[in-house]
């Protein structure tokens, strides 16, 4: 726009501020990444080393003595499991809520809205007591299945399903297509971007749901990566090199997922915000 060309100086100052802010936001990541390669005595030295002068792999070696692989595997199992089940359940429900007329539709729809507006706190303790009655404490399913009850995914998929032309579904029906068949070959291809967005969201939320993992997981073997890093912090207190190495490993998968799927993310967030 020509409008802002008149204000180049102002634009430069504002942009400089944005860059400064991003530097501040990036700093913790920089500090994790460099700290992971610093020997223990360097991490506690003042003035600090801005760049590791004698990078070492010592921290990762020390880390490999803890059940790190187990933790990573657990995190992946829980996140992938949650992702699969949430996507399946939400795609089916979202499609029906967007495209079908049936008695009870409004009741279900409004209960979902109310549940979404209510904060999770009321649910936490009773959920915990229910899960312990089921004898699910310290299991994968205690972290995977309750996540499938949260209505956000259903909403997102309802938004995406709204765009499916009704005539297409009618035509398929007239041609003798079963419901399951037309869901599979018409609905799913059309809501694919939505499923993509939901999949990534769910994966990352499951990976980062520290609170639930904290109250459910009881043994070191079942721990997830975030719990593992929290444990490292307790065990190594100020041995920051090892803690940073753990922190780096715990966030690396998320950073990779995010960079690859950034487009889906943006789409999912903006679609989810449009209430309907």
């Amino acid at each position, binding site marked *: 726009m020509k409008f802002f060309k008149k204000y180049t100086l102002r634009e430069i100052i504002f942009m400089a501020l944005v860059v400064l802010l991003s530097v501040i936001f990036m700093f913790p990541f920089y500090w994790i990444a460099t700290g992971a390669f610093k020997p223990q005595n360097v991490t506690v030295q003042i003035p600090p080393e801005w760049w590791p002068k004698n990078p070492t792999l010592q921290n990762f070696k020390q880390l490999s003595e803890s059940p790190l692989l187990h933790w990573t595997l657990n995190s992946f199992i829980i996140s992938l499991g949650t992702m699969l089940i949430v996507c399946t359940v939400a795609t089916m429900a979202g499609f029906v809520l967007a495209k079908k007329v049936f008695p009870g539709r409004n009741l279900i729809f409004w209960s979902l809205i109310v549940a979404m507006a209510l904060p999770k706190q009321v649910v936490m303790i009773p959920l915990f007591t229910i899960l312990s009655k089921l004898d699910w404490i310290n299991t994968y399913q205690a972290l995977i299945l309750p996540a*499938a009850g949260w209505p956000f995914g259903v909403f997102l998929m309802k938004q995406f399903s709204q765009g499916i032309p009704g005539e297409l579904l009618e035509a398929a029906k007239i041609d003798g297509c079963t419901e399951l068949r037309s869901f599979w070959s018409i609905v799913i291809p059309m809501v694919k971007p939505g499923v993509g967005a939901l999949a990534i969201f769910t994966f990352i939320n499951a990976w980062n749901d520290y609170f639930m993992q904290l109250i459910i997981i009881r043994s070191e073997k079942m721990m997830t990566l975030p719990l593992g890093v929290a444990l490292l912090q307790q065990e190594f207190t100020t041995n920051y090199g090892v803690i940073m190495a753990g922190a780096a490993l715990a966030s690396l998968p998320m950073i990779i997922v995010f960079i690859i799927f950034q487009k889906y993310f943006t789409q999912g967030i903006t679609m989810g915000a449009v209430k309907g």
Partner: protein
Amino acid sequence: MENIRKGNNLSVRRKINKTNLREWTTAYLFLAPMLVFFIGFVVYPMLKGIYISFFDYSLRNFKFVGLDNYISLINDKIFIKSLLNTLILVIGNVPVVILISLFVSANIYKKSPVVRSLFRGIFYLPTVCSVVSITVVWGWIYHPNFGILNYLTSLFGFQPIGWLGDPKYALGCMIAVLVTLSVGQPIILYVAALGNVPESYLEAAEIDGAKPWQVFRHITWPLLMPTTLYIIIITTINSFQCFSIIQLLTAGGPSYATSTVMYMVYERAFTLNKYGLSSAMGVVLAIVIMIISIIQFKFFGDEVDY
């Protein structure tokens, strides 16, 4: 005419016949898995949470005590302090998040797609990354002896501060971390909303000689109002639920200076096994959040121009 036709249509659809029954059955078959999880893990626990808040419920006890849990909360100084801390956290976090995200978005949304995604990504990264990773590095940054923050302030001649150990600063430190964790989503939403502001409005204002600030105040800001409202509400709810950074950095200390309701719920329920009392706290928190959301809706809703 239109209405009558619609009405007819509906009544035809609602008629119970074989085709409709089949249609309804399929609808419920598709909904069934979601309903099972939703009722089992959300609706039922929610009702049960309200129910057990009236009981003295611990590992051994399950006794009806009426409103006793709520009364003991009102008299509990630590709970009141935690509630206040939580409110401070929200009041400190929300405006800063709005300000930063609006400022960043307004400056990047007209840039090339690559630059835009780059900045969007940078600010979203802390949200995506494991909260635990971010929190442990902040623990190091804030450390009174080995942390880089005291080193940086010492360059400007300040005395070292025990950031997390000092009741004066600890809550402020929490807000700073919380801000970095909260701006990602608002920036994405604002960038999208700013892209939808019709260019012709801005050009018309420009021709009329409006200054950039005036254009923003009278055209852009009102058009962004629905997005802002949404961001305020989600950020408020998220700040109320702030838990991980507290548990990992200060465990509520020093002397409850950073204890939040959510942290207290955790502590009372899972270290002291007082499930009834914790549920009462959860219910109180839920009510507070709902009241605040309704106020925000009423207050900003008037300005929203759909």
